[in-house]
């Protein structure tokens, strides 16, 4: 933890970056870590890193009010690193726009200044679903379509359309979301069954081939809808059908928008 704080102090003191986005202690008993924005070396004290630091801080890179503050160093979990690469592939982040401070479970800090170094770092990581995730996904996939429909109907019935999933997702960065289009209003505003289904299906589809499985949408959901199941299903489909994993390279074709004659599927021929 001290290595991280020292690194932050050094970066801010040397004005290499204007801000360090990291984790700080949340308020209250047993509160999870929350994001802190350190803008002076003296504030580096409040930086922490432990098992509770799960949020994908790359989400702040896309917020205009954060961008205004200048170049940032970002305390980056593996998911956040992949997010940075995916954002670069989508022309949202350019090389040298930020400095990633890759952290691992042991608290080891690796500064990664370029997208190329991030790519190299990510290439060495295990990006497969964890054993637990796999088991849960298999259980879900084993349901027949009718059971699956029922499952989601029950889950989505709780959806409040608060859009916390959207706010937490670093890849939901549109300045105007489809749900805010009201000329015409394709997705209904009220949180009724149809509207909830349409919103959640659309959210998942917009992440197909892009989601890096950070899990923040599900963590942000106040009513505990397992949104990660939709995302994980889609990313395993994309991997199986197009041999494509998002967030691995700063320059990558998007699985949903490109056609390659040597794609494994052949229905289009």
């Amino acid at each position, binding site marked *: 933890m001290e290595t991280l704080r020292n690194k932050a102090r050094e970066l801010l003191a040397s004005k290499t970056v204007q801000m360090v986005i990291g984790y700080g202690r949340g308020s209250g008993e047993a509160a999870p870590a929350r994001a802190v924005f350190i803008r002076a070396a003296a504030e580096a004290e409040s930086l922490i890193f432990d098992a509770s630091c799960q949020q994908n801080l790359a989400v702040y890179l896309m917020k205009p009010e954060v961008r205004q503050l200048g170049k940032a160093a970002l305390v980056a979990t593996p998911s956040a690193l992949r997010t940075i690469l995916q954002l670069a592939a989508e022309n949202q982040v350019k090389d040298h726009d930020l400095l990633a401070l890759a952290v691992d479970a042991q608290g080891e800090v690796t500064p990664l200044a370029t997208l190329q170094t991030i790519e190299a770092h990510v290439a060495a990581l295990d990006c497969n679903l964890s054993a637990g995730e796999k088991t849960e996904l298999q259980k879900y996939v084993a349901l027949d379509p009718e059971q699956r429909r029922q499952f989601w109907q029950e889950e989505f019935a709780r959806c409040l359309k608060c859009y916390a999933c959207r706010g937490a997702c670093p890849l939901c960065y549109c300045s105007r979301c489809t749900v805010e*289009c009201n000329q015409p209003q394709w997705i209904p505003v009220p949180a009724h069954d149809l509207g909830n289904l349409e919103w959640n299906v659309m959210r998942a589809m917009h992440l197909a081939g892009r989601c890096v499985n950070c899990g923040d949408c599900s963590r942000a959901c106040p009513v505990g809808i397992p949104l990660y199941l939709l995302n994980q299903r889609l990313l395993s489909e994309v991997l199986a059908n197009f041999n494509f994993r998002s967030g691995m390279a700063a320059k990558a074709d998007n699985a949903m928008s490109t056609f390659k004659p040597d794609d494994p599927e052949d229905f289009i021929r």
Partner: protein
Amino acid sequence: MARIGVFICHCGENISATVDVAKVAAAAAKIPGVVHSVDYKYMCSDPGQQMVSSAIKEKNLTGVVVAACSPRMHEPTFRRACAEAGLNPFLCEMANIREHCSWVHEKGEATTNKAIDIVRTLVAKVKKNKALLPIKVPVTKTALVLGGGIAGIQASLDIANSGHKVILVEKEPSIGGHMSQLSETFPTLDCSQCILTPRMVEVAQNPNITLYSYAELESLEGFIGNFKARIRKKARSLDEKLCTGCGLCCQKCPTKKIASDFDAGLGMRPAIYVPFPQAVPNKPVIDREHCTYYLKGKCRLCEKVCPTQAIRFDQADEIVEVEVGAVVMATGFDIKHGDFFPEYGYGNYRDVIDGLQFERMASASGPTLGEMRRPSDGKVPEIVVFIACAGSRDPAKGIEYCSKICCMYTAKHAMLYRHKVHHGKPYVFYMDIRAGGKMYEEFVRRAIEEDGVQYIRGRVSRIYERGGKLIVKGADTLLGARPMEIEADMVVLATAGVANPGAEALAQKVHISYDSHHFYSEAHPKLRPVETNTAGIFLAGACQAPKDIPESVAQASGAAAKVAALFSQDELIREPLIAVVDRQAPPLYSTCVGCFLCQTSCPYQAIEKEEIRGRDGQLIKTVAKVNPGLCQGCGTCVALCRSKSIDIQGFSHEQVYAEVLALLNRGESDV
């Protein structure tokens, strides 16, 4: 407030026989916003169009819905009528109550109700239509012709003679194609080369034609009127400007035993060669796969004997970039070779040959100088069996179509054989004789009646060798499927005509569609036979389907006429039904966030990056922009755009949504 006019067409009885058109007109009149609703027998006729234009003027219409046939049929007609009456043509929509309704349903109330529904959707749409202005794009008046066979030659000459530049690309060292390999042509038996070579020379001499022989298309980008092509000129290994075509190099080349493609493998050629004496251009190429110098590093005999020092062993392929306005595909066909006919011993017995090999054998310039000598021992064959439909019309072999030319050339072959070997006996096994064409049937009758060719209706099951003879086992189905056995000296298979091996890859390169046999698809099988579905790319000859020479030439002239029509104007008018990216006032400028997923998805490379800069030159935002010349309005980008920042003019989100809603809210008041 919208003032919509609805015009219901009877289409003679095409619509009115199953749809109660008066009821549709009455129902349409009640739709909010509709101020005029009539039905008429032929809306597309002059009086019908007059009804539309006078209603526009008298009732001050802001939109028109013509409920009639498919927009593919008459949308241009009615849009023109609207434009003449002073209404923007894009405020006119067609409600397709013929193909989508009257033709596909029985007479009845449900059919009429569906017609009303269709009209209601289009009324809802047209209320959201916006006046659009056509897009003008410049036209590069140069045509690219791919393939220098008879079709490509004809197309090139016709385009060049109408005053436009042509770039003709041929992959072989010489133009001429399959026609240059043929001996004589049906149904007149005039010598193929004698009628072809003057055309080839004409190509070489026409100042409007640039010929790239021994060259292939590398890539094609762009759109009608504005294509960019990259052509790979394969290294001939000599300086074409210095070479005089004297042929000394070919004579002296020590490697002479290479099977000649031109002679269909029956003759030999050296490693440095001109495919045939009348070649255009008459410049040799070095076959690097067989040349001793490229294989072993020494020889260079050709270099030593060349009187003009034209040989260039180190020559590399050259890429030429050209801008063209139209493309004619004239890449021709191939015939089935190889192990396709194990039961006939093709490729196994040397005296079982294909049609092209027979052509070379019968040709005065061929390896036998036109004498009938079978490949195995050079003897004159006394009995020759010709087998038509070898592969064609054979679903078991995967070729269900008729190759069309084989009936005629088989009759010709049998006849030519008889003319050269007077005592010889030709037999033809056939399934049906298809001799549709001017003087074709007469030609086949002549073979049978005057030249004594024996036609046997039946198929050959097997061919095998016995004592130097080829035993042909078949059946005569006109004599009660009597089994037959003929001891033949030579067998000629009229193998199926197929697409060139590279046809699929080339189609993908130029973005045109093709069928399951890799023949190129025309835009409409009857009414647009020389156009492809890609605007500005036309078809000529056997790359579309097997064809004989007159047909290929006719189609080539048709394609040339299309090109000439395209080049007759300086600017091309395109419909403005294209994608546009949202633009807004500052500080947003655009709802586009610049992820450029649309760019990777666009099949026409129509999406560009636009940098929005402040007055101080500072970059504010990079957003997508659609090039109106390139966009084809396919809508792929619209489907992919997450923030719905792209819309298609004429098929906008608002319009489509209004249509959907009109269908869902059937009978209720309109949105």
